[in-house]
């Protein structure tokens, strides 16, 4: 069996320390998983617009050559706003071969969907929930194993933390994720 550890005059099982460390990994892991996925989602979104400046006030993009891409149409079903530059300008542009294969002018598709509304967002969200659910099971197991033993209060707190994190994650549904895009835009700016 695992040896005991003594700290601050209290003797703990090494097993308890390992359990708490594992719970910490699960809590952080569940959170980091979703965060990384969101960051990369927004980075991937931005990749397609790289070099194009978006003006929120005027609702248009400006390309590196100074051409304006104005709002062309909405695709409600896929939650897309589609912007387009004049074909004549693009076809005469020296950067065309690096920019667009079309003869109809460069398009930019701005997604209005939140991360959690996408399939890949749902995938990560479920994995994150599973990770936090595992932390609840392990911390509940810890409470049973260390009940009436030194360190009991630690596993009780851990169970509480696990439950709260799981509840927060369940509560964090797409309807309540307003501002996600703005937050992520900040995180994924080029200065980082």
């Amino acid at each position: 069996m695992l040896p005991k550890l003594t700290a601050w005059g209290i003797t703990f099982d090494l097993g308890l320390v390992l359990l708490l460390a594992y719970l910490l990994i699960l809590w952080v892991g569940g959170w980091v998983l979703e965060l990384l996925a969101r960051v990369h989602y927004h980075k991937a979104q931005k990749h397609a617009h790289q070099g194009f400046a978006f003006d929120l006030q005027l609702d248009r993009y400006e390309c590196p050559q100074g051409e304006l891409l104005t709002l062309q149409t909405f695709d409600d079903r896929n939650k897309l706003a589609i912007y387009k530059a004049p074909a004549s300008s693009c076809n005469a542009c020296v950067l065309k071969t690096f920019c667009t294969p079309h003869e109809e002018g460069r398009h930019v598709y701005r997604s209005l969907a939140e991360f959690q509304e996408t399939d890949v967002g749902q995938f990560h969200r479920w994995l994150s929930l599973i990770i936090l659910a595992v932390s609840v099971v392990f911390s509940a197991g810890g409470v049973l194993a260390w009940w009436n033993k030194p360190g009991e209060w630690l596993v009780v707190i851990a169970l509480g933390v696990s439950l709260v994190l799981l509840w927060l994650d369940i509560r964090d549904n797409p309807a309540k994720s307003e501002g996600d895009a703005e937050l992520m835009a900040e995180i994924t700016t080029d200065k980082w």
Partner: protein
Amino acid sequence: MTSRRALTVSPLWVQGSILTFIIGFSFLTFSALRIYQDSAPVPEQIVDESGKVLFTKKQILDGQEQFLTYGLMQFGTVYGHGAYLGPDFTADYLHRMALFMNKHYGDNEVARERTRRELQANRYDPTTGTLVWTAGQALAFEVIHQHLSDSVYNRTESGAGLKPNMITSPEDRRAITAFIAWTSWTAVARRPDQTYSYTNNWPPEELVGNTLTADAIMWSALSLVTLLGGTGLVLGVYGRHSQVVGWHETEERRVRFVPPSSVALTPAQRVTAWFFLVVAALFLIQNLLGGATVHYMVEAGGFFGIDLPKYLPYNLTRTWHLQLAIFFVSTAYLAAGIFLAPLIAGREPRGQGILSAILLGALAVVVFGSLGGEYLSFHGMLPRGLRSFFGAQGWEYLDLGRFWMYLLIVGMVLWVVIIYRGLRPRLAIESRGNLPWLFLYSSLSIPAFYSIGLMTHTQSTFAIGDFWRFWVVHLWVEDFLELFTTMLVALIFVLMGIVSERYATRLIYFDVMLYSIGGVVGTLHHCYFSGGPAVEMAMGAFFSAAEVIPLTLLTVEAWSFLQLGSRQQSADDAPFPHRYAVLFLASVGFWNFLGAGVFGFLINLPVVSYYEIGTLLTSNHGHAAFMGVYGMLALALLVFCTRYLAQPGDWNESLVRFSFWATNIGLMLMILGHLFPLGVLQLGDVVTNGYWHARTEWFLNYPWLSWARMPGDVVFMAGSAPLVWMTLKIALRTRKSPPPVDHSGAALEVSLYTEITPTGEVARGGTSVG
């Protein structure tokens, strides 16, 4: 003469790939030469101090063959390589020998010092080929032989996952102990003029003075410098040029998918419906066997009261579990290759359908023949001379008998012929560095590098046999299958209009370079402790750290790759037909990140590997990486291809959705609920109580953690069952659709999508690749 299409990428990509490939394999060839010169010797005879012969070289090599063909490498390990229920025979023998000798010499400090000195002394004379053992070593041999006979070879009743009376021949039993005793001698006797053993002091064992060597620490430190410097350099360069390589596109494209029921199918494509039924069936059986295998951790003598070991002992269920993992993934790859070839070439030559059907038949013969051979071999039902040929060779992952291995290689060559015939019209007009040719090269690499496994024989000196085995286990599985995976994913994304051919081609060249730099020579990190020369450890340590660099980049890439799925969408009211194929591909990216990247990194460094090898953390990495990457890709291929093969009424999106979530959630539960935490506890036990102890049935101390595997397994298995039902329906009622022809009867090319813009549709004449 037809002019070829120009190379779609800069020639520098091709030149760089060839150069790094040559450099990587030069190192590996050098290490192959050294291993023949410097591996641990097998003495002609081992004698006691009076000159009495204890056993001979023939017995050691015979013993190795019996050890392998009775499936003991799929029960426990030698040098840390093999299965995890049984002990590590090398470490266990060494520990028992040291304990016995201590007691025999008086059980005090003087006795302990004498034991250490006697065991470390190398009394092998290379001129006569004779190794002299002390009285303590000779007596220990008899005692341990008796212990192994009672507990492993010749049990009186089922237990420890093994059936009773497994090995009835006393000569075979003694030969196996001779082999194990020899491995433990190589683990402790110091190399001539060196202070470390033939295994670089592995296993860690206090009683005999085996600790990490100075060389190991030095090379670990240097490899860490390489790791940090290399990672910084590569990430820096990648960050600067990530627009050139990687899973993204300059301009997002929106496409309208041709409804699957409108896409014409060729005869060979229709045959693949049966391939995918085989994939689903093998996958389900593989899962059930995995459940039986892991159940032995909680009930070593049976299965809920049934005497399972009598018929399906642990070593057999585990062998089949591993073999079927390779078979179901390979079958999916073969089928996908056949399915994609006409999409790339735009047409299909006559006879492809018949050839594909022959290949399917050959595959069935190999799969069921080899599994049957393994059963007969492990149950001792084949004559000794035929066991390794028709039965089992027994090297972990190369378990199948040699005859079946030859047949498998022939089958894979036939597959390459089918691919070549299918691609030929396209190859004739493409530059030899373009995507269709890369597809052919990567297909060719699969039989080519699997064939290298033929260098491993059941009577090869262990270090040499193991070295060639890892050309298959590491180089084939971790490098060339990984490359083929990238190839297939890239092709599918190109066919679906998600990335352009130019980006996909760059990414494949980039992968070749990454794997050639670290992955190829990184093969040697499996060989630190198998009795090979010290230079293997130096190169292995240095390059296995370098191997982490592509793994790190892989994790970065995996996240970017994941996002492609999120951007895929249908452009009009027609539903996107590949929602779950893309989601399975997204999960490939996720598991590549976690399983190959994070869990691979966790155990790759030499100082970690010294303690970690042969623990559940390896199994943790294996499950997350193999099932997560190759398994999920196999399912993605199944879902992608069967979408076109199914009659509209036979396609059941709900079943596929259930399979997707159940397999991913089940795998996650397996990892987090069982393999990872138990692996960490086992690693802690290695450090605290020694390697031998951590490889006993120590996990019986954590029964609830062992049972925690069950929910994940059940969910995962539930996910595999619906695919069998769906593929059975599709195979029995494959959609009939004649190849498209124009008004003159000439074949028309097929496209899976058309690209659209807000102002109208852009027709994409011809296929998507190119």
